[in-house]
């Protein structure tokens, strides 16, 4: 079972739910932090990191001695990563999307493969929990390939929890696509509702079943609940605002560590997701 934790709006509690759920489950569990721009799960899990590997992507390298400026490469490149200026061919590695079209079409063999660092993949564990986290290099714009690299680890265990980035565009899709269930975390405010609707649309486009956690459930209005009812999205858990929880969070202490009784709540959350998914499959 692969569960992605998503939200649309940022700061609603994705990481809180992902980390507490992962820490509460007994057994064969992996946690994947796919919010590679701002990964935070490690701040709460405090894993032992066993391995850090650099993740790179293809960029072209030009052999000026062989290049005759025929421009076949600049013609095929849709991303303006290659340009002829005066008597030389220039590469703009940050613009490259690694399609390798230039490598394919160069008739002179003047282009070879080089790399650009996208970021790192950290692998580790916290007790029995497996932990993987992607971290994009500052200044790097292309996150989906790094997210996909983190997700190569998802079939290693029985349960995989994915902490997704906020939003609804390509990085979020890369983090959710192919998962079995999307657990959406929202807050009951106009911003929370507006962005939840976008997230629900994205999940529908992907055809993945979803459910809802309402965080800070007593700070806002009824909009989110009414919408959930109308759209037939199950609300699996409501977490009321408690200053004690917010303060523990601010220090990097998971809820289940500060208040161990919450572990039962998070295990129940998982059971509800499992039951709901099983019922859906049957019908």
């Amino acid at each position, binding site marked *: 079972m692969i569960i992605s934790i998503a939200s649309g709006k940022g*700061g609603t509690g994705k990481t809180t739910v992902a980390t507490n759920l992962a820490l509460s489950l007994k057994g064969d569990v992996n946690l994947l932090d796919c919010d590679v*721009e701002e990964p*935070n799960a490690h701040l709460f899990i405090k894993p032992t990191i066993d391995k850090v590997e650099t993740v790179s992507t293809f960029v072209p390298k030009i052999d000026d001695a062989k290049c005759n400026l025929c421009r076949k490469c600049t013609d095929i490149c849709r*991303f303006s990563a290659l340009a002829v200026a005066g008597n030389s061919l220039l590469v703009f590695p940050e613009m490259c999307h690694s*399609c*390798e079209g230039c490598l394919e079409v160069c008739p002179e063999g003047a282009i070879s493969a080089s790399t650009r660092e996208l970021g790192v993949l950290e692998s580790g564990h916290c007790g029995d929990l497996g932990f993987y986290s992607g971290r994009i290099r*500052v200044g790097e714009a292309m996150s989906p390939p790094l997210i996909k690299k983190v997700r190569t680890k998802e079939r290693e265990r029985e349960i995989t929890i994915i902490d997704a980035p906020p939003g*609804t*565009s390509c990085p979020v899709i890369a983090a959710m696509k192919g998962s079995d269930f999307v657990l959406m975390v929202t807050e009951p405010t106009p911003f929370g509702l507006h962005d939840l609707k976008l997230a629900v649309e994205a999940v529908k486009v992907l055809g993945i079943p979803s459910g809802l956690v309402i965080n800070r459930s007593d*700070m806002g209005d009824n909009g989110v609940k009414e919408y959930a009812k109308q759209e037939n999205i199950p609300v699996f858990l409501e977490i009321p605002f408690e200053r004690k929880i917010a303060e523990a969070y601010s220090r990097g202490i998971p809820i289940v560590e500060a208040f161990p009784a919450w572990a039962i709540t998070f295990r129940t959350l998982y059971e509800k997701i499992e039951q709901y998914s099983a019922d859906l499959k049957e019908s």
Partner: protein
Amino acid sequence: MIRELVIVSGKGGTGKTSVTASFAALAGNSVLCDADVDAADLHLLMAPVVKETHAFMGGSIAFIRGDDCVECGRCLELCKFKAISDEFVIDAFSCEGCGVCVDLCPEGAIDFTVQQCGEWYKSETRFGPMVHARLGIAEENSGKLVSLVRQETKKLAEARDCDLILTDGPPGIGCPVIASIGGATALVIVVEPTVSGLHDMQRVAQLAVHFKVPGLVCVNKFDLNLDMTEKIEGFATEHNMELVGRIPFDPIFTEAMIQGKSVLEHAPESDAGLALLDVWRKIQSSPSMNTMGIKDFSAVIQ
């Protein structure tokens, strides 16, 4: 000279949009720009009346014409994004829009049509004009749309003879954030006093260094963790970022949002309202915002 203040945070949900709306109320005469095209929320507080709607044409996506395809398999070899199935159907979510299969299909059986990836709008609000956008669900090219929205905001500011742009930025440090901050006059980094807030702010600060944009730091909900607030302010000072004040944790933010108003309109005399006023005054008198056209890179974050 037009100055552009971009409100960012690294971490989502720290209060960027509420802070931007309050600045708009205080500035009176500014042009607003919502650069969070992926999950835009500023319009919920600004109630913009849309005057112009424009289509945003993003990249192209490949489409195999079944009738002309001879299933030679060349496209499968070429595609680095595993976007083509064994049945020769292209998955639009996986297609990167590189066009390599289109150019090199021996049968010329692949179409490459430009996609409409969203819309952008020119609107009027009670605080002045606003440019905003909506990126389609699951679309790419958010950076391109952000750049477009910022360019249009600048044109509008010039046309209206307005010298201040307030830009509500997206969360993170990736493609849309990079597109939001290049060439800005200064960034306001809204941070919450949590381990995540500090961690994420450090990364957005590194990005600001990369693009040589000065950063002003404001801690929101500062009283949730005073130690962390001091740590954040210490980091900011060490890295040559100016501190522009603290805002207390206050449910008035949520109340104002429910009313569709900025905190400054809803409760100007509240603690949060007064704190926001103080932050705004500090920003206005900040050297970063008053360079008189001189770029002083010694004042840039280090």
